[in-house]
């Protein structure tokens, strides 16, 4: 290793100035040193600009240190300078794969503060689109996790479904990723004609195509060999770290605010929560896949419930949350998203604190990666589902 002693040398995509300490093992004529391998911030495996510094002993990881902040955009501060309508357009960008769920959280918080009545129709439609959004998110992760394990094809299939769903949602909301469809008190505008019928059709289509993923990825022996028993996360550790969402459910804990603390109309329907057993990479992935089925089940139930009526209630000219504070948590696709909204009665929040699921989930990475092989480290990295913008905000 010609460059062990030249610490200044920087790998592609590493930022300069990262100080790396080497530990020398053994003695005599042939001592060995750990190698510090910097994965990211621009590395094919990190889907985004997440960076992990791995202390490697050969191909074995001795220590993993996540380095975050490459995508920090100051969301919480920006929110203090934007009124509630503008925040709604902003927050769907921190976890860009679950835009609707994010803006739903803010809308719920503002509604709670203002003690607003939301029409039933709006609530059901919100659920419908939130579940579609969840499927969009999970499809993305199914594709990207397969890519990290070297299988390129599931990504292409997943995006075929994603395009169809995005086309559907675009017809109602006008956006493909950032829907900006919620507003305090309901939705911006009602669904276009034929949306529900199309949604129903699409739900069957996606359901019919799901077995492809089970066959191509989950049932594949190589995939199982790469993921079974890799990075098991015990449920008590997961709970103590604060891991939520599919990563937590894979450990066998059926915690889901949609069931335990129902918001919107989730209390009126049957919400299946798939759980795993061992909390290893395989379980995490299979939970994700089964969560798509669960979401499709919810969507099918919602179709039977959407009542006629208005979708928004009358808003004051300027939405101002009364003085006080509230906390709202929702089950985002990646886990629990919480907004702590504090207002001094003005047109902008005094403070908007975000508890984002990805940030909590990546806390498990140093624990999971200790002592694994480099390819397993990648397998774990992909299976602890996170969005970099959601970590760094």
């Amino acid at each position: 290793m010609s460059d062990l002693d030249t610490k200044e040398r920087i790998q592609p995509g590493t930022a300069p100035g990262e100080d790396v300490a080497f530990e020398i093992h053994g003695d005599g004529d042939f001592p060995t040193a750990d190698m510090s391998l910097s994965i990211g911030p621009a590395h094919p495996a990190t889907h985004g600009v997440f960076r992990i510094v791995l202390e490697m002993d050969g191909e074995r990881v001795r220590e993993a240190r996540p380095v975050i902040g490459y995508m920090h955009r100051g969301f919480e501060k920006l929110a203090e300078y934007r009124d509630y309508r503008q925040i709604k357009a902003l927050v769907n960008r921190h976890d860009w794969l679950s835009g609707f769920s994010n803006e739903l959280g803010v809308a719920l918080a503002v509604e709670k503060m203002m003690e607003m009545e939301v029409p039933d129709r709006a609530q059901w439609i919100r659920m419908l689109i939130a579940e579609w959004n969840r499927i969009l998110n999970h499809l993305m992760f199914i594709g990207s996790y397969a890519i990290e394990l070297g299988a390129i094809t599931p990504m292409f299939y997943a995006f075929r479904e994603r395009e169809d769903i995005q086309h559907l949602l675009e017809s109602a909301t006008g956006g493909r990723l950032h829907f900006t469809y919620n507003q305090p008190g309901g939705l911006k505008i009602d669904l276009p004609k034929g949306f529900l019928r199309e949604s129903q059709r699409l739900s069957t289509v996606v359901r019919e195509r799901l077995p492809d993923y089970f066959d191509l990825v989950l049932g594949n022996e190589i995939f199982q060999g790469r993921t079974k028993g890799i990075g098991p996360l015990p449920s008590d550790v997961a709970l103590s770290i604060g891991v939520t969402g599919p990563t937590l459910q894979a450990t066998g804990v059926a915690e889901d605010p949609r069931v335990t603390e129902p918001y919107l109309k989730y209390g009126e329907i049957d919400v299946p929560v798939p759980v795993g057993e061992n909390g290893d990479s395989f379980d995490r992935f299979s939970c994700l896949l089964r969560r798509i089925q669960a979401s499709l089940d919810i969507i099918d139930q919602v179709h039977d419930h959407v009542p006629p009526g208005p979708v928004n209630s009358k808003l004051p000219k300027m939405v101002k949350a009364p003085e006080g504070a509230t906390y709202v948590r929702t089950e985002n696709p990646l886990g629990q998203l919480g907004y702590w909204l504090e207002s001094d009665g003005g047109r902008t929040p005094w403070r908007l604190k975000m508890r984002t699921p990805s940030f909590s989930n990546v806390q498990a990475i140093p624990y999971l990666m200790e002592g694994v092989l480099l390819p397993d480290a990648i397998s774990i990295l992909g299976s602890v589902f996170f969005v970099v913008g959601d970590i760094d905000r």
Partner: protein
Amino acid sequence: MAATSPPGTGLLKGLGVTIKHLFQRPATLMYPYERNELAPRTRGVIALMDENCTVCMLCSRECPDWCIYIESHKETVPPAKEGGRARTRNVLDRFAIDFSLCMYCGICVEVCPFDALWWSPEFEYSEYSIDSLLHEKEKLRAWADTVPAPPPLDDGAVLPAEVADAIEKAEKERELAEAKAAEEAQAKESGAAGGAATPAAAAKEPEVEVKAGEIDQETFDQLIAEGKSERIARSKAKAAWVKKEKARLKAEAEQGGGDAAAPAAAPKPAEVHVEAGQIDQETYDQLIAEGKTERMARAKAKAAYVKKEKARLRAEAEQAAPSGESAAPEAEAPAKKQLSEVHVEGTGEIDQEVFDQLIAEGKSERIARSKAKAAWIKKRKQEQLDQEGGA
């Protein structure tokens, strides 16, 4: 699942899934030659109808990115009538949106109180220079021609207050008129036909939707002659047009048997679908002669083409179904659908004729080629369609 099946089945299944897709038609859309039909609500580019703008600055202030630049000056308008008070009004000098900064949230469109801003699904305005992403008033106006009609709402939806009010008002007027007619009839026949009016009134008022956009020239001229400002005249004339159009459609609907479904199926002007793509050569030449840049001219010429084509199609549709029978648009729709369903593999061949023509017109080779390719594919599709139709 995999645990119970013999080893290797997972591997075989994987091969099966992939080979299955080999024999399916690819999901690919050949973009420059084929396009997705974009939903009317798609947030592609913001169009400005500058005659509606009152320079209230709401959009500019509400914009989270502050990417709308408005400049105006005040003008004094002479009194409308002799002895009246002179008024001042804002005249729009500059309206620019910086699309390099815009976050496409749609707040400006939402807050605009006079419907001056609209979403258009167009998205093809990549630029070599970032300065060109600042779209000025003229360019924003050109986008306005590409704005589609808003889609009808879901059956369970409650109509927006303005629309509901308008419909209610129309219904009341009609009821009044009917009541009057009934009274007259009663007076004439002096029979006990009191119940006859009730079912007629209870019959559901056909929902007439008219897209504002055109103006009633007559009213406009009249108002201008009366010394009204152009903006007011335009908006009033528009309202007048909408009113007239509604009346016309309603009359047609009633003519068509009073069936509630008929007017909805009538070929509304906005429903005519025209694929943007070709340009109106006349407009283009004219604009070039005026010293406009090529891109600008092209965009405008495109819009002009769409407009013309729409007008033409509309005329055709009306010719085909003068009374707005529901059959006409339905008959047209499947034919169109078939054209898009016919699959022709683009082999890279081009329609030489179109190509030569475009080159002669001074188009860049890229554009000429892609258009000629598209023309070729279209031709083949048409041929195939004709064949199928013949068979």
